[in-house]
Structures are given as structure tokens and as C-alpha cells.
């Protein structure tokens, strides 16, 4: 199991969604992808993509406008 970190701080639509998908494509089964970002809509939409892809959302956190989403591959 590897932790793959994706930093999308300061990025806007559609980059956080696209970079999350790229990381999930590269990840192997059981790897965890952790995405950090500031784009508000992506915090809602990355979980939608995770559901559409049939993957498991482990955690969503937000502090001072910076969110962190962890996804199980």
C-alpha cells in the first residue's frame, strides 16, 4: 500500500478533478490517494467522481479554506 499525494492548492476547474483521476489511474489496488486543494466546487465534485468510479471515500477534512480528501483505490 502506497500513499499518493496530489497537491491542487490554488488550482481551479477542472484541474483538481483531472489530477485526482490521473492519480487514481496510476494507483494500484489498496493504494490511498490524498488530494489537497482550495477550489470549493472540487471538494463537492471529487466525492461525486469517487462514487461514479465505484471507489471508497475515506475522509474529507477542511481547515481554513484548504480541504483534504482521501480515497481508497
Amino acid at each position, binding site marked *: 500500500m502506497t500513499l499518493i499525494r496530489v497537491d491542487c492548492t*490554488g*488550482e*481551479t*476547474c*477542472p*484541474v483538481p*478533478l*483531472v489530477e*485526482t*483521476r*490521473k492519480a487514481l*489511474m496510476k494507483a494500484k489496488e489498496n493504494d490511498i490517494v490524498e488530494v489537497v486543494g482550495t477550489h470549493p466546487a472540487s471538494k463537492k465534485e471529487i466525492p*461525486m*467522481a469517487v462514487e*461514479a*468510479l465505484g471507489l471508497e471515500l475515506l475522509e474529507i477534512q477542511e481547515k481554513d479554506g484548504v480541504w483534504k480528501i482521501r480515497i481508497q483505490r
Partner: protein
Amino acid sequence: MSDKTTIIVHSGDMDKIYSALIIANGALAMGMEASLFFTFWGLLRLKKGGLEKGPLSRKNMLGFGKFVMEEKMKKVGVVSLEKLLQDCKELGGKILACDMTMEIMGIKKEDMREDLISEYCAVGTYINEARESSITLFI
């Protein structure tokens, strides 16, 4: 109905190319397939050096409006059309080029961004892609 998005990119306007590519990349990121069929003015954006050449669809003002828009987009952190296209390819998006437009406008394959284009084709290919798509758009 399969989980696929098919977009006809008819306009070569900069803002509309952005719309098409952002939608395609969003679809790909959310687990759909995506095909972009570039035709007429849209096809010109796939010429070598042509990607960023489109005017704004409104308020272009001989390029001044486009300049202002580009500055605003930079401030917000909007990525380039080149990055959007590279991402589209990396996520498995198909870039289709209309061969009739190429004939009409006298464009040869060597004038085109062949690194991006998946296939040169005509309406039949578009219909085959669109008939199995749950989202189809004409931009």
C-alpha cells in the same frame, strides 16, 4: 446507453474551445469516455500553432477583449488549452478530425497536431460515437 460524452467542436472561438475541453475532461475524470469531433472553425485549432489563436466569441474587440480575458484567467489560475488537451489524451479522450473540413480548407495532415489526433474521419464515425453516448453537445 453507455457512459460516454461526445462533443462536436464546430467553433474555433477560444472560450468555446475551453468549454468543450473542460466538459470532456470532467467527463473523463468522472469515469466516462469522451470523444471530441473537431470540424470547421474548431478544426483550425488543431493546426500546428493554432490552439491559442481563437478569438473570444463575444467582446473580442480586435483581440483586446481576448487579452483582458486571458489576464483574468491567469489570475484565477485557469490552465492553458494545451494542458487541457494533453490531460484529455492522458485520460483516454479521443480527438477526431473532420477530413472534409481539411479538404475544403486545403489543410494537410502534416499541418496538423498529429500528436493529438486519434483519427481522421467523417460523419459516420461521429454518429457511431454519438449513438452510444448519454451526453452529446454541439459547441
